[in-house]
């Protein structure tokens, strides 16, 4: 009896395992093989010899990367933009979610939530066209309409790096605010309405209700989402930093992040070693940061930890 039961389970396991075959093979190739390929960072890559036969370079690639100061600039840009995004995402997301929840007219609410989500679902290439329509030197809306109306002279937007930290932050907020609002809204909607009614009885103002009921109850969501973003702090949105500034050279000091640096090194093929070193640096430090932020989540709120 027990023997047949055991046999039956095995057949079931094999059937289930057969479903997993395509996906597992895909992950092994797409995700695990490149992990093994991280050794490239320690090679002096020579395509004529092939990757495996290329000479070992030791830490030479890393030495170059850090000696040129590139590492410092790309790390600084990646971290500072991400910090700005994390703070803004939190403020904008929570504020707008609370405000959207206050709107009682169902049709308006639907209209708003549908329109603010639109930028999230279009590609960064299309976004770069929209930004171009605003900022293009000859035909852009800023130069031809806004600055003209203000009586100011035209600005060569794609050559002047001082504007770009603001432009990139605005584009980021424009693209992601709908997503963040809906994400926090899901938590705001979940709050028990009896709490507000009781506060109402006690004569609490709207601001007091937000301050003492809504915000404390949103705290777990705020912490989880923020720590998730901190876990990704070594990664940047390649499209935002590569596509939106249109690959413009004079802007590199403020638009180059680890991801764009790695791609540009790969594209030029001239400093593929440094590119590989930067990718290695991102993978390893990024991994440590993910583990650390998860450790913090576990300390604060065990249920919202990733693992």
């Amino acid at each position, binding site marked *: 009896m027990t023997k047949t039961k055991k046999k039956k389970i095995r057949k079931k396991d094999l059937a289930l395992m057969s479903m997993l075959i395509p*996906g597992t093979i*895909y992950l092994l190739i797409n995700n695990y093989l490149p992990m093994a390929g991280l050794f490239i960072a320690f090679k002096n890559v020579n395509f004529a010899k092939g990757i495996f036969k290329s000479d070992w370079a030791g830490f030479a690639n890393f030495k170059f990367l850090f000696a040129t100061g590139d590492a410092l600039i790309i790390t600084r840009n990646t971290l500072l933009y991400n910090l700005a995004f994390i703070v803004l995402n939190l403020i904008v997301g929570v504020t707008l979610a609370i405000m959207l929840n206050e709107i009682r007219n169902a049709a308006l609410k639907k209209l708003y939530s549908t329109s603010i989500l639109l930028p999230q679902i279009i590609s960064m290439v299309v976004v770069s066209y*929209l930004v171009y329509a605003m900022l293009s030197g000859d035909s852009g809306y800023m130069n031809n309409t806004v600055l003209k109306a203000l009586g100011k002279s035209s600005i060569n937007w794609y050559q002047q790096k001082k504007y770009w930290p603001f432009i990139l932050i605005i584009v980021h907020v424009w693209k*992601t605010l709908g997503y963040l609002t809906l*994400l926090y809204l899901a938590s705001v909607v979940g709050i028990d309405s009896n709490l507000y009614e009781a506060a109402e009885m006690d004569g609490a103002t709207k601001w007091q209700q937000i301050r003492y009921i809504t915000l404390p109850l949103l705290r777990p969501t705020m912490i989880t989402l923020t720590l998730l973003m901190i876990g990704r702090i070594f990664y940047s949105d390649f499209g935002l930093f590569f596509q939106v500034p249109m690959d413009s050279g004079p802007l590199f000091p403020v638009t180059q992040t680890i991801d764009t640096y790695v791609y540009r090194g790969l594209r030029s093929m001239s400093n593929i070693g440094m590119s590989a070193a930067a990718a290695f640096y*991102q993978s390893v430090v990024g991994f440590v940061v993910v583990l650390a932020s998860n450790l913090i989540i576990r300390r604060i709120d065990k249920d919202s930890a990733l693992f």
Partner: protein
Amino acid sequence: MKKKGPKRHRNFQILCVAVFTLLTVFILFPFVLMAVSSVTEENELLIHGYKLFPKAFSLNAYRYIFQSSSAIVRSYGMSILVTAIGTTVGLSMTVLMAYPLSRKDFRWRNIIAFIVFFTMLFNGGLVSQYIMWTQIFSIKNTVFAYLVPNLLMGAFNVMIIRNYFANNVPFEIIESAELDGAGEWRTLLSVVLPISKPILVTIGLMIGLAYWNDWTNGLYYINNSSLYTFQNLLNRMIQEINFLSSGEAAHYVGTGIAIPNVSLRMAIATLGVIPILMVYPFLSKYFAQGITMGAVKG
């Protein structure tokens, strides 16, 4: 819920409506500017730039796209092909990965779940991925370059579908199907999937959106312009304003036609948004669902 609050609360609500109205204008303005510019007379654009209320309209840019430039139409077809194949294969693989992981009685559940999960924490980076795909698998300048790297199946979607199965498909249903003699495949296809339609639509939509919007795989692995998807053509056109009339793409373009470059840019970008706008009203519920589940990276 429709209860009217005291006056000060109404003031707050008016403030909320005002803020969201302004916000909606801020969000939609660039889209409107793009659409209006795409039907503005080329000369007016050259003199006054992109404007919200142009004086002269013209459909020349669109006429040009559909009559003279097979490159654009062809790339549109390529995008549709890639999206259709990628979504079908990707969703199937994701579901087949998620279902066994949702089964508590599956023997190798933990080890496989770890294999999936670990990919969310650590990755090999672009350089080794690029070298692997081009040197070992030779996908450069093939359709596989659009389909295979990264987009086909992601750990996040697997986890979302797995959780859906685990929470919404009662184990009793699966057990009774098995008592009736259905095998695992049979149970999945004719019992589990039919009651899981909402999540399949949501994740299918997210995978489709990722394929339609993707331009990075084309940027990394495709340099043959006859294989361009729509996004890659867009990408190329913003870098080289005269791409369509010069060099590689010239043989697609009839000679002697003045290309309305400035309006054309906006027309072609508009065409990139239209398919999304067309499905969006009907599926916005699923979009919102997918987005709150974190399935869209953007």
